[in-house]
Each structure stands twice: as structure tokens, then as C-alpha cells.
């Protein structure tokens, strides 16, 4: 073991990149998990190739994983990597733009021969043509070293070569002064039925670690001390998993079983996979024949007294509009999860985009408002899907939940909530205070109907998609009644504003500039605002989770700043909406539609140009 004491860093961004089959996602997660156990704050983002496996060695087949770890609070996986590990020329080529100038690149030189260099689309060998002069290159024959290290192990060549990711991980562990213990434990449990694989992987891990000490290619190694993290029990969680678990928690709280009707689609499918494991908790998952059947089955389940949920991505959400309208008319609970992705049409299925705010707000025939909320970090998908459940059950109208590919696949450490501390969710139960039950009687505060379900004797009634008469719920073609019901439905959703938290402001409470965002851009916006503050430019940040209705205090907040900048990963959907709701203010825009999150720098640059600093 090296005895030089490592250099201390506040934070560092590391990127793993290799062929889809090279195990980079695993390597990344192991590094992440070990760092979390050491007390670092962190955030990760996997960068998958498009859905189908491309031929080995091509740029299309590269799979990446980025993690930022710190002793300071970490809000994003980082703009650019300080260290990249590239397992072949294609991985180098497609990831080089993600490395900061001056950063370190560790390269498996074994793959840098002509054939693979060509396959990656290079004309000349980048290791020789000077194109990497701006970076610190650490050349290591990772594959052959792994083979050498494992030469005595009784395994076929293919399986031995597969261990090269552990060799790479070992190097990284030395570089960042991390223990190998957690990964060893992991290997022992994962391969418990194949001891030879445990041995091989451990050997590769150790060999990498020792190799890094030996070559000392980097002047010294680094230490990222633990961050100041709130005490508690933690686990690592992705947005899709947090969404699934939040639903489990909400169903338990409501005392209803969870019904999840869905049709697979990237990047929403993992919620289905996750929930289908929890049958013992009473979850029913129906993989429907299409998105329409999915939402309709959820409507049926809600009607019959379960917590009905459906999920999809843009193209599938576009198909659900008619059915969501039915749930709005029937005034029953329904959660619609939209894990947004790049569009329009099939678009960029594996890429992130804040694509569907307009669709959520307006994608139905006629005036049919519903509640719209969005999480803002992978972990808080738990909290906000729980909120979605609370609102749909208590207000008896659908809630659309706008996650996206970045939140869904990104992950971060998550302090486990105490289930008992979660807010209660009250079912709107009909109380017979002398009045006879009628299907469109309403709770006086929330203006919602009561959730009376088949099987309850004496309350038999009929509902449906034709316009309803106020109170009785009978079909009505009466003009005044139609106006009244249109108004009631709008008012009901507006009333929700009385039951959600006020909008919080981060940073300056008034002044030159307010930055406004929603959903998955939170991490970058927060980082940008914090950095600007440090640089002596305090601005305000309002990051909206409750999109319809908007928090009641938002209107006043917007008035407290000289300028307002609205940033989104689309061509301007929130800003258009704000112009409608609060037309008295002027808004500037920062938009990006590239299938990628904002970098902190992009946000800071825009703000600086507005403020002339």
C-alpha cells in the first residue's frame, strides 16, 4: 500500500466508459456505493446507448457512467469529468467531450490497434496524433494485465477478459484512496455459487489497485473526505425506484392496495419491473396490451377502490388523453406518471427532455384541468409521488407526475424516511349527516366527490363520461348546468392550492434576478446559484414542483425581482404557461433541447450575460 498521503479534494467527477458488454455500469455503481459508505455526498448518471446493442467497438455501442463525489453537497453528476476511464477507442471518442481540459484519461491501450481505432471512426491513432495533448493520459494495458494476473485461474479466456472492469475499478480505488472491502463483499454475495469467479474478480481488483500504486502515473492519489451529511440510515436510489417505492408507501398510507397498469416503454419500464416484485405488499401490476388499456385498467381499479396508477413516456402519454378526460369527468383518483424523453414522435427514446408539460396541462379535449406535479431529484421522486397520491385521493381528480429520463436513471444517496412521519392521506368518505348519498355531492372544503365504491350496500349509483348534473350525477344536457360543472371542475383544481406547501425561495429573497425552473433541472440550477453566490452574485432560485395549480405565493415572489429567467429543457413550455397565468411579468428564457441536462456552466453563463457580469 502506498504511504504517500493523498491530496485532499472537495469533489471530483469520474466517468467510466466502455463497450456495452464491458460492465461499466457495474463498475460505476461499485465505486458509487463505496464512496457513499465512506460518507461522500454524490450523484450519478448512466449514459446508455440507444436501445439496441450496436456492434462491439463502435461508438453507438458505448455505455457510460458518471459520478460526482464530494465532501461538499453534491447536486449533479457534474458538468465535465476530472477522470475518464476509457476501455477502447470508441469509448474515448464518444466521451472525450465530457472531460474537462486538463483532466486525466486512463486508457486500456490493448484495444488501441488499427482495427478498433477504425471501428471507432478515428482516422489516426489518437494516442499518437496529438489530439489528446490537452489531457493527462495514463496508458495502461488493462486487458493484458488482467490476463496475466489471472493466468493461474481455471477459467476460459472470455470470462477472464470480463474481469478487466475490476482491474479498472481497482486502479480507481487506489487513485481515490478508497477501500476495496465493500466490493469484495459484493463479489462474494453475487457469485456465491461460483467461487472461481469470486477469486478471479478479487484478483483483478487487487491487481489493478497494486498496478496503480506501482506505476504512480498520477503524481499522487486523492482523498475526498466525508461530507457533512445528516445522520440517519441511507441507501442509494434511482428516480424510477424511488417512484415505485413512493407508490408503495402511499398505498400503505391510504390503506388501499396499489394497482399499476402499464405498457412497457423507455424510460418508464423499470417502474413496472420494480413494482412487479412486490406482490406480497398487495401490489397488482398489469402489463396491459397498450397504453390505453393500461390507463383504463387503472381507472377501473380506482373506481373499485384501489389506488390506480399508470405510467408511460411521451408517445404513450399522448395516447392516454381521452381516458384521463374520463377520470376528470368521473372525478376519481388516478396517477399518471410521465417519464419524459426526447421527442417529438419516437424521438430520442433514451435521452432526457422536459418534453411534456404542455401535454400534461392541455392534452385533452375541452376544458379538462388536472393536477400536475414534478419531482426534482432522483430521491425526491419518492416524496413527490407520495404527494401525487395524497392529492389524487383527497381531491378526487387525476394527477400527472412529470419525471424524466435524467431523474429516472440518475441516482443519489437517500436518507430513509420514517414511514410514520409521512403525512396522512385521508380518503374522502361520505358521512351521512342526515343527507342522502348522491354521487356528485362534494366535500365543502376540497370540493371533491366522495370515494364510494362498488360493494358498499345502499350506495349504488351510476357515473360516466357524459356531462353530469350537479349533485345527482345524472346525465344532463342543460346549458347552465354544463357551465356550472365546467366551473366546478376548474375550481376544484384551483382549490388544491390551499392544500400544497408554499413555494420556497433559495438564495436571494429579492433583487436583480430570479431563476425559475421545474423538474429535473434542480441540481444544476441549485449548483449554479450557489456558485454565483460564492462569486458574489446572489440571485434567487424558485424551483417549482407543483405545476398545476401553482403555489399561491408564487405570484408575489415573481414580483420581487427586477428580472425573471425561466430555464427548461424544451423550447419554452413553462415560460408560456407563466405568461398565461401571471401576464403582468416579463420573462426571459434559457432553453436547451439536446437530450441532455443543463450544465452548471450553461446556466451561469446565461445569468452572467443577463446581469452583465
Amino acid at each position, binding site marked *: 500500500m502506498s504511504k504517500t498521503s493523498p491530496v485532499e479534494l472537495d469533489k471530483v467527477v469520474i466517468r467510466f466508459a466502455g463497450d456495452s458488454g464491458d460492465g461499466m455500469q457495474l463498475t460505476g455503481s461499485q465505486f458509487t456505493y463505496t464512496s*457513499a459508505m465512506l460518507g461522500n455526498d454524490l450523484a450519478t448518471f448512466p449514459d446508455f446507448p440507444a436501445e439496441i446493442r450496436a456492434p462491439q467497438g463502435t461508438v453507438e455501442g458505448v455505455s457510460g457512467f458518471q459520478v460526482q463525489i464530494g465532501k461538499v453537497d453534491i447536486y449533479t453528476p457534474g458538468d465535465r469529468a476530472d477522470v475518464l476511464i476509457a476501455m477502447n477507442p470508441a469509448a474515448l471518442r464518444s466521451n472525450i467531450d465530457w472531460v474537462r481540459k486538463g483532466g486525466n484519461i486512463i486508457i486500456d491501450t490493448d484495444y488501441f490497434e488499427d482495427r478498433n481505432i477504425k471501428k471507432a471512426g478515428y482516422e489516426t491513432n489518437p494516442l499518437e496524433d496529438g489530439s489528446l495533448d490537452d489531457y493527462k493520459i495514463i496508458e495502461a494495458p488493462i486487458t493484458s494485465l488482467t490476463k496475466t494476473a489471472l493466468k493461474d485461474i481455471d477459467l476460459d479466456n472470455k470470462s477472464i477478459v470480463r474481469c478487466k472492469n475490476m482491474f479498472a475499478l481497482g486502479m480507481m480505488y487506489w487513485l481515490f484512496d478508497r477501500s476495496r472491502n465493500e466490493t469484495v463483499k459484493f463479489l462474494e454475495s453475487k457469485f456465491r455459487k461460483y467461487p472461481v469467479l469470486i477469486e478471479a474478480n478479487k484478483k483483478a481488483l487487487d491487481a489493478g489497485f497494486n498496478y496503480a500504486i506501482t506505476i504512480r502515473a498520477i503524481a499522487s492519489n486523492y482523498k475526498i473526505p466525508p461530507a457533512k*451529511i*445528516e*445522520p*440517519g*440510515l*441511507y*441507501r*442509494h436510489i434511482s428516480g424510477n425506484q424511488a417512484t415505485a*417505492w413512493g407508490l*408503495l*408507501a402511499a398505498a*400503505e398510507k391510504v390503506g388501499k*392496495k396499489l394497482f399499476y*397498469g402499464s405498457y412497457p416503454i423507455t424510460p418508464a419500464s423499470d417502474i413496472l419491473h420494480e413494482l412487479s416484485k*412486490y*406482490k*406480497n*405488499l398487495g401490489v*397488482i401490476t*398489469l402489463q*396491459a*396490451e*397498450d397504453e*390505453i*388499456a*393500461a390507463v*383504463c*385498467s*387503472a*381507472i*377501473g*381499479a*380506482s*373506481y*373499485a*377502490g*384501489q389506488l*390506480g396508477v399508470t405510467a408511460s413516456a411521451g408517445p404513450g402519454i399522448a395516447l392516454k388523453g*381521452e*381516458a384521463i378526460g*374520463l377520470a376528470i369527468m368521473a372525478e376519481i383518483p388516478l396517477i399518471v406518471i410521465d417519464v419524459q424523453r426526447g421527442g417529438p414522435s419516437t424521438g430520442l427514446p433514451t435521452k432526457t427532455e422536459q418534453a411534456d408539460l404542455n401535454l400534461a396541462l392541455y392534452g385533452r379535449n375541452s376544458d379538462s384541468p388536472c393536477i400536475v406535479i414534478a419531482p426534482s431529484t432522483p430521491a425526491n421522486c419518492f416524496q413527490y409521488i407520495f404527494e401525487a397520491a395524497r392529492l389524487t385521493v383527497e381531491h378526487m381528480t387525476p394527477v400527472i407526475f412529470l419525471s424524466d429520463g435524467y431523474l429516472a436513471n440518475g441516482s443519489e444517496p437517500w*436518507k*430513509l*424516511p420514517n*414511514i410514520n412521519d409521512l403525512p396522512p392521506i385521508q380518503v374522502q368518505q361520505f358521512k351521512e349527516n342526515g343527507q342522502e348519498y348522491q354521487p356528485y355531492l362534494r366535500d365543502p372544503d376540497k370540493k371533491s366527490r366522495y370515494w364510494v*365504491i*362498488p*360493494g*358498499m*350496500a*345502499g*350506495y*349504488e349509483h*351510476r*357515473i*360516466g*363520461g*357524459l356531462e353530469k348534473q350537479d349533485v345527482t350525477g345524472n*346525465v344532463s344536457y342543460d346549458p347552465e348546468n354544463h357551465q356550472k360543472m365546467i366551473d366546478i371542475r376548474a375550481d376544484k383544481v384551483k382549490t388544491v392550492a390551499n392544500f400544497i406547501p408554499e413555494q420556497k425561495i433559495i438564495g436571494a429573497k429579492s433583487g436583480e434576478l430570479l431563476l425559475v425552473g421545474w423538474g429535473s433541472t434542480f441540481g444544476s440550477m441549485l449548483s449554479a446559484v450557489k456558485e454565483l453566490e460564492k462569486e458574489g452574485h446572489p440571485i434567487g432560485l424558485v424551483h417549482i414542483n407543483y405545476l398545476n395549480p401553482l403555489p399561491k405565493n408564487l405570484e408575489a415572489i415573481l414580483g420581487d425581482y427586477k428580472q425573471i429567467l425561466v430555464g427548461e429543457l424544451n423550447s419554452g413550455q413553462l415560460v408560456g404557461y407563466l405568461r398565461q397565468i401571471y401576464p403582468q411579468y416579463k420573462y426571459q428564457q434559457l432553453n436547451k433541447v439536446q437530450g441532455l441536462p443543463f450544465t452548471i456552466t450553461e446556466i451561469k453563463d446565461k445569468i452572467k450575460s443577463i446581469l452583465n457580469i
Partner: protein
Amino acid sequence: MSEQAVDAPQPKLTKKDFTSDQMVRWCPGCGDYAILSAIQNALPQIPEKKEDFVFISGIGCAARFPYYMSTYGFHTIHGRAPAVATGVKLANPKLNVWEITGDGDALAIGGNHFIHAIRRNIDINMLLFNNEIYGLTKGQYSPTSRFGQVTKSTPMGGIERPFSAGELALAAGGTFFARTIDTNPKLMTQIFVESSQHSGTSLIEILQNCVIFNDKAHGAVTGKEGKDDFQLHLEHGKPMLFGKEREKGLRLNGFRLEVVTIGENGIDQSDILIHDAYQHDSTVHNMLIRMSPPHFPMALGIIRAVKAPTYDQLVEQQYQASVEKASYKNVDQLLKSGNTWEVK
């Protein structure tokens, strides 16, 4: 709530208990009236509590049905009733779920949900009111309209070959198929009662008359002569006989069915096929479904009723099995399972 009342003795229900206070608004003479009445007669004969009956419909004349029943009811959207009904049944398997649909609702826009519900064998009863036309939208052809039929949207006659609801259902793995007619209240009531006892998706095709846009579409079967010569009332275990004097019957000739007359050409009772509704192989059932005048009678009654696990039962079984295996009993335990770490 129903759970508390499980053991309370039930007062005997009557037709009136199933009649809502809403004015029935079909055209005078529409076949739907008779179907409504037959259902209202059937429900009291089904040993379920009133509050456990649920009627789910799509859109169409037929689909207005739930408003006229004083049970729980949900008039949903066009074509999607099977999906809604699937959600209802899974949410609460104790409910007795009826889906009401028309030929357009079930086989045009709803065709996919129709075959998938049947494939899953979810335990619901589907009543398909087949008037071979779109009634509510005033007379366009439907997927069951005849080839060549002139309708509002086919002024020169239709050029699509009609679906057979029964054949489609069997191809989708259907476990129960019955056919009846709006002019025979007794048969309807009886079939409704029996279909409710089948576990799995029961499809009941009702030949229904739309007096306004497709009058006498089923005239060949329901008309005076039709009644005797073109209706074959099937009963499990009974020979396939029909005709005024039950003098005609069906027998097998190679791969084909054949109409024969007892006493002619040396045919006697023993040549006549015996109806086996319970056989899993669908070959004969398909042949029976395909028959139609003028060369054959129309098969009525329960054509197929075979046993297979229902989707809702299998869901319940997996639930039970997973409860036995699970290492956590609630969300709190789940959260704390697996890879966690403590920050002090």
C-alpha cells in the same frame, strides 16, 4: 360495507330492485329493451348481493345500459370497457362484473381489448349487443355488418367481410361463448344466469334488432319460419336437433357439419351429434359458431364452456405465494432491506 354483511341473511331480490329511476331512452321498438328486462330478471336468480353487481359499458346505444340498472355502473369511453372492467375485477374479485358493449364498441375500436381480456380469461361477463350497425352515430356499418350492405358510409355497399365475434373469441382462447336473441326473453335470462356461473371471461353474443338503422338484420333467424328452421338450441349432452318437430339435426361428414332429417336416407337419432360444450378442443365449437342460414341453422345457447384458471385467480395465487416467501411485511421493512448504510 359488504365485508361486514357477509353472513347477514339476504332478502330475496326482485326485478324491481334492479330498475333505476332513469327514463329509458332507446328508440321505441329497439331490441335493447328486451335485453334490459332479461338482465333485470336474471340478476335476482344469481346468488350475489345487489351491491356486488357492477355494470361497465363503453359507448353506443347499448352502452347506455348501466343508467337503467340500479346497481353500480360506469359508462366509460368507446371501446375501452374490457380494460376498465379488468381493473375493476382485479381491484375487487368479489364483484360480479358485467361488461355491456355493442358490435362497434367491442369489435371496431375495442377489438384489441376484447381479444386481450378473453386471452387473460379475466372473470367478467361480456354482453355483446350485435345489431350489425353503429346505432348511436346513426347508421354506419360495423365490423359485423354484411358484405355488400348499404349504410350511410357505404352507399355502394360494404366491401369488408364481417367478423364473427365467437370465432375471434375462440381464437383468443375464449373459455365461454353463448349466443342468444333479443326476441327470446327466456333463453336470454337463462343464459345470463348460467354465464355468470362460469369462471373466466363469458362472452354472450345477443342478436339484437336496431329498428331504426338495420331493421330485421336477424330476420332470417327471428322471423316466423326462422324460429323453427333456423334456430338450433344447443344444450350440453343433448343431440343437436331442431325444426318444428325437432325432425332435423346435425351430423358430422368428414370435416364438415351436415344438416340431416331424421327418418330420411336412413338417418336416426344416433347419427345426430351430441353437443359437448365442455370439450377443450375448439374445432366443433368453431364449426357451430360459423353456421348461419340459409344452409344451416344459427346455433343458440351455450356453445362453449370450458374450465381454465382465470387471470384474477392466478393473480391471487401469486400474491399468496409471494406473501409466504417475502422477507419484509411492509414498506418500512422493505426500505431497510438490502444495501443501506448509517451516517452518524
